[in-house]
């Protein structure tokens, strides 16, 4: 395990309203994704944060770009690609962006030893399609997307 003792944040749930800004809708979609190495969510581990989801002002005739930047728990985290792939897969499979937005998923600059390489890979649509067709990778992504609820025993 790359990071045996990650810092875990207590989270409180906001109520999501129908007219919430897109950034919040995306955050809501991503917060419960499970970290591949820990029984915790990306939100609890501060891998994703609200302020790291941004939407560019669209230029004339162009679509706005949604940018999701995430912070691996340690700079040598070998699971960073898988986390990014889970984030992309979750957003692509939902219809929150529709045809109105472009999506960039990026490792936050300066937070990972091979951040640029991972970011390049996460934004090559052929690489992403191939990864998600790979049954082993698909299984790992699906595990992350299942969240953590099923891992936790609710006290009686």
């Amino acid at each position, binding site marked *: 395990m790359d990071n045996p003792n990650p810092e875990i944040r207590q989270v409180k749930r906001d109520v999501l309203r129908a007219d919430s800004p897109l950034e919040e809708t995306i955050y809501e979609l991503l917060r419960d994704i499970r970290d591949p190495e820990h029984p915790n969510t990306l939100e609890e581990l501060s891998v994703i944060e609200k302020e790291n989801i941004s939407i560019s002002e669209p230029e004339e005739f162009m679509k706005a770009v949604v940018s999701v930047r995430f912070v691996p728990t340690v700079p040598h985290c070998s699971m960073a690609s898988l986390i990014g792939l889970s984030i992309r897969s979750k957003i692509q499979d939902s219809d929150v962006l529709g045809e109105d937005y472009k999506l960039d998923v990026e490792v936050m600059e300066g937070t990972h030893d091979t951040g640029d390489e991972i970011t390049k890979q996460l934004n*090559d649509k052929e690489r992403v*399609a191939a990864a998600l067709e790979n049954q082993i990778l698909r299984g790992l992504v699906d595990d992350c997307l299942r969240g953590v609820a099923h891992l936790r025993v609710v006290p009686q």
Partner: protein
Amino acid sequence: MGSLWFQWSIAAAGFDATASILSFKNDELAIVGLLDLHESEVKSVSYSPSGALLATCSRDKVVYIWESGMDDDFECIAVLNGHKQDVKDVVWHPTSELLASASYDDSIRLWKEDYDEWYCCAKLSGHTSTVWSLSFDETGDRLASVSADRQLIVWRQSSKEGKPLGSDPQWREVWKTDETEHKRPIYSVDWVGSRIATGSGDDCIRIFTETSNDTFEITSCQPKAHRGDVNSVAWHPQKEGLLASAGDDGDIKIWKLEEDV
């Protein structure tokens, strides 16, 4: 993915790691050959001008050259290793057996044969991200390349004058687009006559026209050409100003270029 005609045959690249040769037999299109040496998705295929050779490339970093024999038989005659990452596109020079390949390793390589051995005779470095697509001009003296770095670059083969006999020509960058022209990666380029068309992840098709030697100007930009990335653009080989495009929206569109009056 990529595919190409030669006479009544079509070569098609597949995400299933194979390239297929399809041919019209008794008015029906049938698969007549399956090239299955690649280890991962085949990204592009290209027939040489004579139709004698076929090149394929893949995410497995390798380019294969196949020779077509009798009865649609294809034999692998060369394995081109050199690219350090996925090879996204292969195109043949219009008049000679010179092959160009584009890669996720940000480089373009040119390959040719010498005494039955294929080797890399030039490496073109200038892009700062994945090179997605290539197109030679009609003479083959120039090559256009497009990349995820949002740039279109035109390369020219330098003259052989003053070089030792038998040395390979150098290629140098002679023109490139303004950095802010394309807003997203460029996936496709096609060059016919004085016009270069590009298809981009910003959903636009752009046309660049040569205004003087090695100088181009953007003469047309079609926004929202597709409801998603434009993955491929191709000029009609004879009818001037006809362009086909394919997009992430699953549509294929035919465009006609109208001159300003």
